[in-house]
């Protein structure tokens, strides 16, 4: 059924719709997690899904994250296509063995005998006053695990297109969601075959002076900064690697060749964050010779996320940090 309509909806609703469409399309898709049934998920992502799909496909689990992910891996290798939700990304810490030592490696370790088509949904990020154990952005860990794919949408349309692509993918895909984006709105294609391809970097705004590479919850801040700078006549190009691993570097490299200046930004702690990887790849690429100024990483401070609202905000790059970094790059002779 082809549907050309477009509808305004939230990021939350877009993920939910993507899951629903894929569950309607393929009986092998099931969904597991804590309080996803009657409660509808801690962040409301599965509201109404129990009624639609029943207890056989919407499986409320005990508080056993390792079992959730391990069960998904076992189900995926035997013919199902499980989606699972870890209530907060912080608790993927409990499931690292199942995810990394089993799910990610199984295909390779067994010489290609099996595939592991599963999606692990991970609500991430700070800004909710939930402190150090409920606010982390741990994507860098996952992007260091060959065998996993890692995607992270910033807009409702990306969210719908990527969750669908993730469910259809034959590999374990970590789908990182941003709590602060859940209620943001945007236009979303209703076409049931609308897919956002995995391994694709999006150009969110064209420009020629400075390249900003950012993703997730920092995208809106970068966009606001760019709008502000545009009024000053500075044209920022914004690239969003919505697949973090494996990353589509070409648009990024091309952009840096064009602008000669780049900021790489994320919410996760700076040290060991994915920014290092992106900067290193730019440095290794042909763009290196076009750089007119040192590359800048904007990232979370190297601290756990504090509770106090002002302190919490101080940890994460803000719009003003983007603006300042752009000025800094342009000042570099």
């Amino acid at each position: 059924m082809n549907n050309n309509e477009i509808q305004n909806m939230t990021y939350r609703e877009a993920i939910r719709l993507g899951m629903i469409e894929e569950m309607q399309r393929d009986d092998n898709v099931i969904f597991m997690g804590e309080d996803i049934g009657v409660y509808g998920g801690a962040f409301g992502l599965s509201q109404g899904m129990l009624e639609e799909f029943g207890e056989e496909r919407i499986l409320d689990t005990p508080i056993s994250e390792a079992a959730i992910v391990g069960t998904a891996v076992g189900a995926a290798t035997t013919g199902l296509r499980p989606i699972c939700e870890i209530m907060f990304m912080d608790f993927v810490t409990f499931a690292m063995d199942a995810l990394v030592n089993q799910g990610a490696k199984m295909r390779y370790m067994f010489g290609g005998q099996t595939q592991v088509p599963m999606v692990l949904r991970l609500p991430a990020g700070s800004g909710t006053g939930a402190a150090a154990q409920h606010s982390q952005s741990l994507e860098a860990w996952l992007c260091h695990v060959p065998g996993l794919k890692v995607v992270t949408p910033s807009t409702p349309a990306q969210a719908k297109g990527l969750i669908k692509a993730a469910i259809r993918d034959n590999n374990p895909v970590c789908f990182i969601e941003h709590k602060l984006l859940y209620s943001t709105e945007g236009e979303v294609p209703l076409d049931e075959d609308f897919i956002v391809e995995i391994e694709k970097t999006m150009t969110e705004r064209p420009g020629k002076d400075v390249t900003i590479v950012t993703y997730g919850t920092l995208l809106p801040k970068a966009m606001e900064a760019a709008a502000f700078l545009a009024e000053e006549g500075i044209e920022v190009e914004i690239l969003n690697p919505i697949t973090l691993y494996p990353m589509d570097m070409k648009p990024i490299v091309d952009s840096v060749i064009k602008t000669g200046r780049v900021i790489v930004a994320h919410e996760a702690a700076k040290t060991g964050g994915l920014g290092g990887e992106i900067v290193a790849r730019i440095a290794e690429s042909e763009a290196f010779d076009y750089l007119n100024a040192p590359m800048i990483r904007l990232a979370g401070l190297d601290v756990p996320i504090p509770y106090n609202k002002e302190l919490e905000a101080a940890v994460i790059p803000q719009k003003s940090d983007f603006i300042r970094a752009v000025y800094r790059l342009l000042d570099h002779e």
Partner: protein
Amino acid sequence: MIELPEKILLRMYYKMNQARFFEEKVDDLFTKGLVHGTTHLSIGQEATGVASCMALEKGDLVSLTHRGHSQAIGFGLDVNLMMAEILGKANGYCKGKGGSMHIADVRNGNLGANGVVGGGFNLSCGAALTQKYKKTGKVVLCFAGDGATNEGSFHESLNLASIWKLPIVFLIENNLYGMSTPVAKHMNIENISDRSASYDMPGLTIDGNDPLEVYNILLKALRYARAGRGPVLIEAKTYRYSGHSKSDAQDYRTREEVEEWQKRDPILKMKNYLKDNKVFTDKQILTMEEEAKDSIENALEFAMESPEPEITAVLDDVYA
């Protein structure tokens, strides 16, 4: 009928009231949007939170859950500093960095509330190992919820505590739900205390809404652990009246169920006991209640007037 010293009864009743008022106040602050973040209230669970801690000796330690306000007050934390922490202030217990889910007073043996369900089990083993190794004669009281007993850490910790004969009392506050999930849906056994059999440790299920039963059983369990006989698992059945956290439509239970449990309210139960046995006069009881209430008003005032942390504090205390 169990006879307890008046002093203990007084403190118990006072603190249970304090806990109730504290959380009603916190609820109010969140509802009004005056506090950032979320909170988990233990209204209805004051007996397990408070009366259990009354049975501790000086120097004993506790590990609290995300639903830890009553537990903290029971253990003797200062409501002023607790409230300041919840408001994110510089002189809160954690200098505003922890909030409701991480209230701690480590120097005095409160190893902290834990935002991770099941996160306290193995920390308690470690704290108990220290007591055993240093022969302090102290015991660790480890709180956890029913849902937490399905985490792998429950199993690993109880096994370790058992083989190493660690001085711990595991107190499971079984409030019948893990978030929205009823116990019968997350495990197949009636009494969580039956899980003690896997570790050859004593296990006991008690009425968690009866403060005197909680107190007396805890006394015995602590004595057992203190004697070096190993850990004990206690399951106290209780109930929370509020939603799981700030945002909870409570579709998973009925109004009637909540009301049924409210009839068995632990504070009411204790009040009736005190009245029926004429331990205190009605006037004395009312005074205690009012003093408890006032202490919370004062706490709020204290917290409101407390300073915000300096923004530079964001970089402090990552490393020792």
